[in-house]
C-alpha cells in the first residue's frame, strides 16, 4: 500500500499555485491540502494523480476572518481550528459542535474544511454544513474567480462543480443571527466513522414558532442537501415533538437513499428519520 509515483509542486503563492494547477490539471494533477482523504485512496492506488499541487505552503490560504456578515475560511484552515468557536454567535458554536464528529482528533489536525468540501464525500459533515447554511464556494483558477452557491456546488458522489483547474480557495459561511437554534446528529457504526446518516437543523424562533428553517441531510444521498419537505413541516410550527416527528417523517420519505451491500434503502430511511428528529431535539 504505497502510493504510485507523482510529481509534487509546492508553490508559495496563490498565483503560482493556480498557474501550476492550470498546467498539470490536464495531466491528472490534483490539489493536495490536508490529504486526509486523498492520501488513503492514493495508498490503495485507487487514485494515482501524476501531479500534486501541495497548497500547504501557499501564503494567504490560511485566512480565517469575518467579512460582510460571513465567516471566510481559507483552503488551508484545518478542521481542528473549529474546536473552539471560530466565528461570533451561533455559527461558531455550531461549527464547534459539528467538528467533533469529523473523524478523529489527529485527522482534524491535518484535514481542511475546503478540502472536505472539494472532496464531496456524501457523508462529509462540512458538506452538510455548507449545504444547509447556504455557503458560498470561491473557486479560483489562472483564468479568474467565481463564486458558486452550495446548491450548485455539490453534484454527486465525490463530484462538484469545480473545474479541474480550479482551486476551492475559500468558503464563505453566513453568520447566524443571535438566537438562532441549531442541532446536529450523526449515526455511524463506531466513533469517528463515516456517517451513515447525518442531519443538521438550523432555525430561528419568531413568536414562539419556527422561522426560516434549514434542515440538511447527509450520508443518505449522493450529496448532502436541504430537504424542503422537512423544512415545510417545521416552518411556522411550535418547536417540539410533533413538528420534529413530522419533519423526520418528511425527510425519510423525501430522500432517494444510497444503498450498499449492507445498507438497503429502508434502513437508510430509518436512519434519516432518526437523525433528523434527534438533530431537531438537540436544537432545543
Amino acid at each position, binding site marked *: 500500500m504505497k502510493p*504510485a509515483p507523482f510529481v509534487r509542486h509546492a508553490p508559495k503563492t496563490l498565483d503560482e499555485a493556480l498557474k501550476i494547477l492550470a498546467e498539470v490539471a490536464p495531466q491528472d494533477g490534483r490539489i493536495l491540502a490536508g490529504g486526509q482523504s486523498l492520501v488513503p485512496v492514493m495508498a490503495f*492506488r485507487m487514485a494515482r494523480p501524476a501531479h500534486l499541487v501541495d497548497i500547504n505552503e501557499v501564503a494567504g490560504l490560511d485566512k480565517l476572518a469575518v467579512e460582510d456578515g460571513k465567516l471566510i475560511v481559507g483552503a488551508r484552515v484545518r478542521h481542528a481550528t473549529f474546536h473552539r468557536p471560530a466565528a461570533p454567535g451561533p455559527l461558531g458554536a455550531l461549527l464547534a459542535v459539528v467538528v467533533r464528529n469529523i473523524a478523529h482528533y489527529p485527522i482534524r489536525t491535518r484535514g481542511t474544511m475546503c478540502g472536505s468540501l472539494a472532496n464531496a464525500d456524501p457523508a462529509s459533515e462540512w458538506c452538510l454544513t455548507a449545504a444547509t447554511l447556504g455557503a458560498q464556494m470561491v473557486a479560483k483558477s489562472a483564468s479568474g474567480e467565481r463564486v458558486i452557491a452550495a446548491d450548485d456546488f455539490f453534484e454527486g458522489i465525490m463530484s462538484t462543480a469545480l473545474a479541474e483547474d480550479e482551486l476551492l480557495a475559500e468558503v464563505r459561511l453566513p453568520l447566524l443571527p443571535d438566537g438562532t437554534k441549531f442541532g446536529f446528529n450523526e449515526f455511524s457504526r463506531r*466513533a469517528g*466513522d463515516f456517517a451513515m446518516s447525518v442531519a443538521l437543523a438550523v432555525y430561528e424562533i419568531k413568536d414562539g414558532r419556527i422561522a426560516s428553517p434549514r434542515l440538511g441531510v447527509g450520508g443518505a444521498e449522493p450529496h448532502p442537501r436541504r430537504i424542503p419537505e422537512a423544512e415545510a413541516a417545521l416552518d411556522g410550527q411550535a418547536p417540539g415533538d410533533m413538528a420534529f416527528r413530522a419533519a423526520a417523517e418528511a425527510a425519510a420519505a423525501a430522500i432517494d437513499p444510497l444503498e450498499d451491500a449492507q445498507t438497503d434503502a429502508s434502513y437508510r430511511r*430509518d436512519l434519516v428519520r*432518526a437523525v433528523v428528529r434527534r438533530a431537531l431535539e438537540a436544537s432545543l
Partner: protein
Amino acid sequence: MSAASHSRETKGSGVKWVGRAMRRVEDPTLVTGQGRFTADLPAAHHVRFVRSPVAAGVIIGITPPQGAMVFTGKDVAGIKPITPMLHKFNYKPLGQPILAQGAAYFVGEMIAAAVAPTPAEAEDIAEQTEVSIEETTPVIDARAALEPGAPTVHKTIPGNLIVEGRLKTDGFDGVWAGAAHHVTTDIRSHRQNATPMEARAGHAAYDAATGRVTLTCTTQMPHLTRTAIADLIGMPENDLRVIAPDVGGGFGQKMSLAAEYVFLVWLARKLKSSVSWVEDRRENLIASFHSRDQYITLKGAFDADGKLLALDANVLANTGAYSCFPNTCAVEPLMALAEMPGPYDVKAYACVARGAVTNTCTMAPYRGVSRPIITFALERLMDKAAAACRLDPVEIRRRNLVTTFPYTTAAGLVLDEGSYLKTLDMAAQAIDLPAFRARQADARKRGRYLGVGFAPFSERTGYGSPAFAARGMGITPGWETVIISVDPGGFVEARIGSSPHGQGLRTTLAQIIADEIGVAPDRIKIVHGDTDRAPYGWGTFASRSLVISGGASLIAAQKVRAKLQKIAGDMLEAAPADIVLENGNATVAGTDRTLSIAELAREAYTQTHRFKGEIEPGLTESGTYDPSGTFSNACHAAIVEVDIETGKTTIEQYVVAEDAGVLINPMIADGQVHGGVAQGIGNALLEEIVYDETGNPLSTTLADYLPPTSHEIPQIELHHAVTPSVNSVTKAKGLGEGGGIGAPGAVINAINDALAPFGVQIDEMPATPQRVRAALRAAETAA
C-alpha cells in the same frame, strides 16, 4: 524441627512472586519504542505479491513488465504444497501451492511475486504485471457449496465436503422423543478476521558464511514454522533459523503457516541475500486467514422442569479455499463437534459437523476458535428454552450446569473441577436480576429497550498431546520444554519453546521460577522465539502457554532448586532438604548459616572438584510438561440498550465472573479478559468480512471491517473465583480465549431480551444495526 517436618516448606517464608500483580518485564522496551518487530528489519529486496483479482479461474498468462524480477508458480514448482493432514472424520487432504499453479481459488491468492529494492517499486511492478485469468463460477457460501450441482472448488474434493464428523450417543432417539419441550435455534456466524494490529511480515536473510537462512517473522509457532518450511523446500532444517521477535498480536491468525514465509526462505536462498515482505492491511483483511463463518442448527430437548436431556447439533463451517497448517481447516467444525455441550450436563448428544471448501480466504483458528459461536448457539438455545419452560435465564442455567467433577461430557471430554454454578451466581448477583427487571420495565414505558444476557462457558486450556492426538492431526502438538540455566554470576536464563506475543509470559514465568529458586524476577531472563536459542516447542496459542510452559518452568525450576539445595547442603554441611531458598539466599532452616545463590552458582561451575563426582557440574536443568488439559470457566453477563430506531446496541454493563484457577499475575490475567471481551464485543456487534456474490471481498479497509474503538467498549467488571487445577502443576488454568468466547452469547442474548416486546429473534453475529432494524421492521410489517 526435623528435616521431614519442614521439607515441603523449604521455599521459605520470604517474598512470594506468584499471585502478585507485578509490572511486566516486557514493558520498558515497548513503551520506549525499542521493541523489535519484523517490519523494522532492513532488507536488500522487497517482495510484493500479485494476488488473484478473481475468486475462481484458470490462469492463462502472467506478463511482468520488461526487465522486472517476477516469480511465478513455475519458478517454485519444486516446493511442495502446504498439505496439513488429519487422519479422521473423512478429511480430504488439500494442498496449497506457494504460488498459484495454473489456477486461482480465491481473491487474494498469491499468483506471482514482484521483487524490487523498495516496497513501493515492488508494488509498481506487481501492479504492472498483467495476469490473464479465465474466470470460472465460484462458490462463496458454505450451504451453496454443498448443494447438489454446485461447482466443484477442488477436483480432489467432490461435492466440496472436506470433512465430516458425526457423533450420536447410544439411546439418543429415545431420550429425544420422550422430552417435554423441544427448542430449536438456527444461528449464523458471519466471517471474521482476527485483525492483529501488526499485520503479518517476514524477513529472510541468507548468510553466505554458513549457507543458513534466518527467517524473522510474525509467527506464534517458530519451531514448527522451521520444520514445515524445511520440509516443503527440501532443505536441511539446521540450515534454517526462525525468529519470532516482538510480535504485534496474533489471536491465532499467526499460528498457521504463511505460504508467504515459505516463498521468502526460498527467495533468500535463490538470491543469496535478504528479502522482506510486510503485509499491508488490505492483504491482511482479504488474504491472511479468516474465521467464524458457520451455520449452526441447534436443537435441545428439555424436561418439564427445564433440564436439558438431549442436544442435537448440525454444524456447517465455510473452510475457504485451502487448509491451514498445522490445524487443518477442520478445526472449527471439529471443535464444535467436541465442545458443543459446553458447561452443561447433558447425556444424550448428536452432532453432524461438516466443513465445506469455497472460493474464499482460508479459514484458520481465531481466539476461541469455534467456541464463541457454539457458546452463542447454546446460550441462544438456553434463553429460548427458558422462555418455553417459563424460567428466568439464571434459573435454567442453574438447573443445567455441571456440578460434579470430574465430569465426562457426552462428547467424551473430561471437565476437571470448576465453579460453573458459583460463577453464574456471581455474575447474576453483580447484575441484580430483580432490580434490572424493574428498571427494564420502567425503561420500556419510556420507549427505551434494555436487555440482559448471560453466557456461562467452559474454556478448554493447556491441553497437551493426548488431546491433539484425539483429533487425528498429522502434526500432534502439545508438550513444552523449558531449560533453565543459572549462570556463574547467579543470574537465571530460562529458554522456552512457547512464543508469547503480548501475553506477558516473560513476566509470569519469571514469577513462577523466582518462587521456586528463591531469586527475584529481575534476575531472570526468559528467552523465546528463536529456534537457535530456544528448545523445540509448539508456541503460543490455545490458551496453553501459562499452563504448559509455566508447568515446564516449574518442573525445571524444581530441578534447579534441588541442585542448589544439594550444593548448599554440601557447602553448609546440612541436609539438602533443610536448605531454604529465598530472597537470593540459601539458608539452613532455623539457623543463620547462609550463602547467596550467586555463590552457589559460582561453585557449581568453578569449584566442581569439591563435589567429588557426586554433583554434576553446571546449573542447567530441563523440564518438559505435557498435561491432559484443564478447563477454566466463566460466566459473562451483559446489559445492553438497543436503539430501536437505528438498531444500534450500546453496552451499559458488562460483568465477567471468571475462574482460571490460581492466578500467577492477576493484572495480566485481567488484561487478557479485558482484551478478549473487547474482541468478543467486536465480533458480536461490528466485525464482518463481506463477500459479494462473485467472491469479491468488500471488507478491505478498517473503515469497512470494524474492530471496536474505546468508545464501543464498556468498563468490564471482573469477579474471580479460584478453583486450583488438579491437572496443572502450577494449579493455574489458561484464560487467553475466554473473554472472546462469552461475549457474543451474552451480548446477543441481551439484545434479544431487549427486543422481547417486539417478538423478534436475532440469531446472527455480528448483530449489526442493519440486522436489528431489519428484524424490527419485519415485525412491524407483520403486526
